[in-house]
């Protein structure tokens, strides 16, 4: 090493600032979003605790050279799977799905942490499997299995949103590698043909309803009955966003929020609250922050010194990207409603913790681009 780099040089300030900005805006927004409902009015404090804890964990994650994770990747993966299995033994059921493990004072959602474990496992696999020629379907069998195990367990809970998310993250990582055109076409065809099967056998009634409602609203065919029943959430969310206008209604002034027309305003629909109260200006700012984090994450991946770092960075970035896109799409009515949270902006301990670990990993990769 020709130059001695200080911690200050190595530290990824843009990533840090962008992450903090999203988290702070999220807490501010959460304060407004939950002010109207008595039971949740302390949620913003909870969020602050989780963010603080998350920051600690992220610092820890970033401090340890990521090559240690590479070494212990299978252990990490195994831990994730074990937690998923624990859900079925100890899980508490909320609204028909069993996603949480109660750990004394708080509850943990293993499907969240499993996403990170999956990324690390895939990074580990690809790290040891360099290819110069295009990958065939046969090459996808092992990564496919790595995906299938946690995803299957998640879908069993059932948690469609997280399951799909795992698939998208997997897909993004695989796109990073060179796939043969033939393999791509075959995969695409398989997806198309499995869709009706999934519709008939895998989806629950309420999930189908959401898709149907989404389709009806997208086509402009939603009548009052559909809006009042299965399309209610999506409709009210669009009302909130649209009625925000350019400048927004002002902090704590969103009527859709304050008069409780928004369901899950703290977990799934905080963006609607934000857009209603901060307007298009706020919308632009927040989407801009996510776009920055994603592009910055890809830049970190491109500067990574090894395949494990690159794949990990891409995986975490993909996680942020897909969660943001799916959540924004669903609150604005261009995607069906699936329970995917907005990264670091939504309320939720496990989600915050998971993403902070992810950001820690990104930071880790970023800070070690000059080392070795």
């Amino acid at each position: 090493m020709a130059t001695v780099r200080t911690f200050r040089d190595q530290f990824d300030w843009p990533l840090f600032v962008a992450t903090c900005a999203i988290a702070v805006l999220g807490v501010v927004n959460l304060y407004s979003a939950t002010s109207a409902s008595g039971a949740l009015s302390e949620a913003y404090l909870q969020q602050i605790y989780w963010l603080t804890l998350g920051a600690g964990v992220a610092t820890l994650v970033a401090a340890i050279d990521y090559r240690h994770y590479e070494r212990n990747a299978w252990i990490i993966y195994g831990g994730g799977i074990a937690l998923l299995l624990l859900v079925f033994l100890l899980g508490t059921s909320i609204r028909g799905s069993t996603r949480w493990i109660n750990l004394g004072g708080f509850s943990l959602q293993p499907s969240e942490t499993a996403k990170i474990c999956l990324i690390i496992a895939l990074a580990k696999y690809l790290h040891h499997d360099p290819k110069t020629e295009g990958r065939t379907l046969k090459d996808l069998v092992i990564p496919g299995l790595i995906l299938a195990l946690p995803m299957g367990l998640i879908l069993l809970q059932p948690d469609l949103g997280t399951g799909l998310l795992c698939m998208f993250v997997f897909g993004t990582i695989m796109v990073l590698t060179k796939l043969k055109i033939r393999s791509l076409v075959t995969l695409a065809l398989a997806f198309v043909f499995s869709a009706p099967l999934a519709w008939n056998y895998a989806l629950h009634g309420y999930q189908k309803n959401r898709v149907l409602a989404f389709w009806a609203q997208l086509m402009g065919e939603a009548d009052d009955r559909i809006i009042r029943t299965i399309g209610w959430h999506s409709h009210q969310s669009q009302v909130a966003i649209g009625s925000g206008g350019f400048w927004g209604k002002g902090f704590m002034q969103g009527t859709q929020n304050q008069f409780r027309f928004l369901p899950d305003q703290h977990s799934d629909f905080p963006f609607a609250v934000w857009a209603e109260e901060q307007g298009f200006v706020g919308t632009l700012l927040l989407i801009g922050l996510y776009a920055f984090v994603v592009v910055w994450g890809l830049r970190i991946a491109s500067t990574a010194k090894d395949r494990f770092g690159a794949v990990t960075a891409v995986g975490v970035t993909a996680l942020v990207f897909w969660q943001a896109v799916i959540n924004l799409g669903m609150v604005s009515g261009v995607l069906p409603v699936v329970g995917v949270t907005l990264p670091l902006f939504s309320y939720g301990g496990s989600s915050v913790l998971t993403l902070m670990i992810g950001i820690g990993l990104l930071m880790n990769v970023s800070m070690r681009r000059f080392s070795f």
Partner: protein
Amino acid sequence: MQLSPRREVGEFRKRYKWMALTAIVVFSLLVGRMAQLQLVQYDEWARIARENITKTISLPATRGILRDARGRIIAENRPSYVVYLTPQLLAPEDVARVAELMNLDEAERAALQRRLDEIPSHRRTHQIEMFGDIDREQLAALETHRTDLPGVDVVPKPARTYPYGHLGAHAVGYLNEVSAEDLERLGADAGYRAGDVIGRMGVEKGWEAYLRGHRGYRRVLVDARGRRQREARGFGIAHEEVEPPTPGHDLVLTLDMELMTSIERAFAGHPSGSVVVVDVNSGRVRALYSKPSYNVNSLVAGMPQADYAALRDDPFRPLIDKTIYESYFPGSTFKPFSALAALDQPGFDPNHRVECIGYYQIGTDRKRCTSAHGEVDMRHALVQSCNTYFYVLAERVGLEPINTWARRFGFGERTGVGINSEARGFLATREWYTEHFGRFRVGDTMNTAIGQGNTRATLLQLALSYGALANGGTLYRPQLIESIREADGTLVEELPPQVARRIAIPEEHAQIIASGLFGAVNEQSGTAYEARVVGGTVVAAGKTGTAEIQRGSTRRDLDPRRAWYFQRSHAWFAGYAPASDPEVAIVVLVEHGGGGGRAAAPIALRVLQDYLGERTSVSPPATSPATSSTPRTNAARTTSTSASEGR
């Protein structure tokens, strides 16, 4: 520490740019979508958001009050209480509690549960009207437990009440809730909503537009569950917008309820019939009495099906307004008009005498008279109601002139009273007879002349026509509403009398008719002489009538043991009083009462005595015939003179 060797990352290199580009495109699309929602479609979404949190509560208008000519209340609004339930806020045990407090029986409980179960989920947060007009005990019970039952609201709502109950029911009318068909028929512009009341008959229906007023609105902020938000919290929306309701106009009717009460009393001996009294100098209707009647208050509350069926099937037809809606053969009360038609004929001599031997032979047909009257001139024919005289008169005059004169007096056309689907009445023409009976015979004219042909008239028509006879030829339009007032009593509009037509009646002709009508009541040979009130002070004039019932016109479903009754003639009296200076005209019909002189005249004379007697005794001498000089009273004065001559 031994770390894994570095691996080749070149495989991924060229893909980062494409990924970044893709991410930027996707985020741009999302920004575009947000711009579409927040900038392009802003107005629409803002409107929906505003509608979401505002709830419009309608404030019902108070309906106008009806008063009679002397200011007595005929219809008013009494406070009543309505129970609303909000299903969302009702636990199953609450329903049982409500049923207990309301003192419901098993069937009512089941009905309540069924209604609650039928409410669709999106309406379960709404207040739903469950019970109307609860009684005092129910109100007390619910109010006591109000705090334990958040899903129950007791709301005051005015209910219509009619202090006179069944008296004048047909003319006054009643209210009840608009039906789904009404709402469809009236359309959205009419402003009616489910749960509103609407006038169903009489003045309540005819003057609905004046009585109902305009509903007001109160806009309040509500949350997603429809709960009122008391705090405005400065959402840039007026916390409460109130547009107060406009109460309906009060109406002062021309009816006199004391007169109606006295008619009711005088009619006590007869099961069915009707009476109309009009002011001869204005056409103001003082009484519209139709018997039997029904208590309008019971219809407002919603009458049990069985009770309604009983009313509908009652052979005395309580649901029919016999003063306006139904028309009858006028019988001998029609004779003055035949007489006027004859007098109008050139060369007709009213003093010419016709011999009545109890019948009149025309070909093989023997037409009956009430008795053998001997030699009668026109005046005596009216006094004694001699049919023979009018048979001869009819032969000479013909059908057309009789119809023409009847038409001048308003027969065969609607009076324009404006309520209760007024009957037009009927004047049969030569063409009509030809069409219906194949040919026209002189006998048809004869029957017409004595009111037994196919001429039909309503009591109101007859009363107005006698009013015109009494006042010297002015046919008024009937007036039921004297003035329109604001709820606070200020006058909106005084409705002036309206003249339908002035009929030119030569004075000497009028004198003959007036004299005949005076004689019928006040001369010993008069058909109504026996009916005079003992010790009465009011001198009336009038004509009796006994209208035969056409064969086959009675109802077939009658109990044969009662059928004889429904074959009896209708008894009529039509006249006016005081004879010297007429104030009111009266028509009495006693259905199946038999002879007019025996059944109808006593009622009429009694009512006139009650109504005018008191006033006559206190009236200043200025109204006495001697000092009066108007042409109208001239005719009347001559009447009394000729009457004394005839004696």
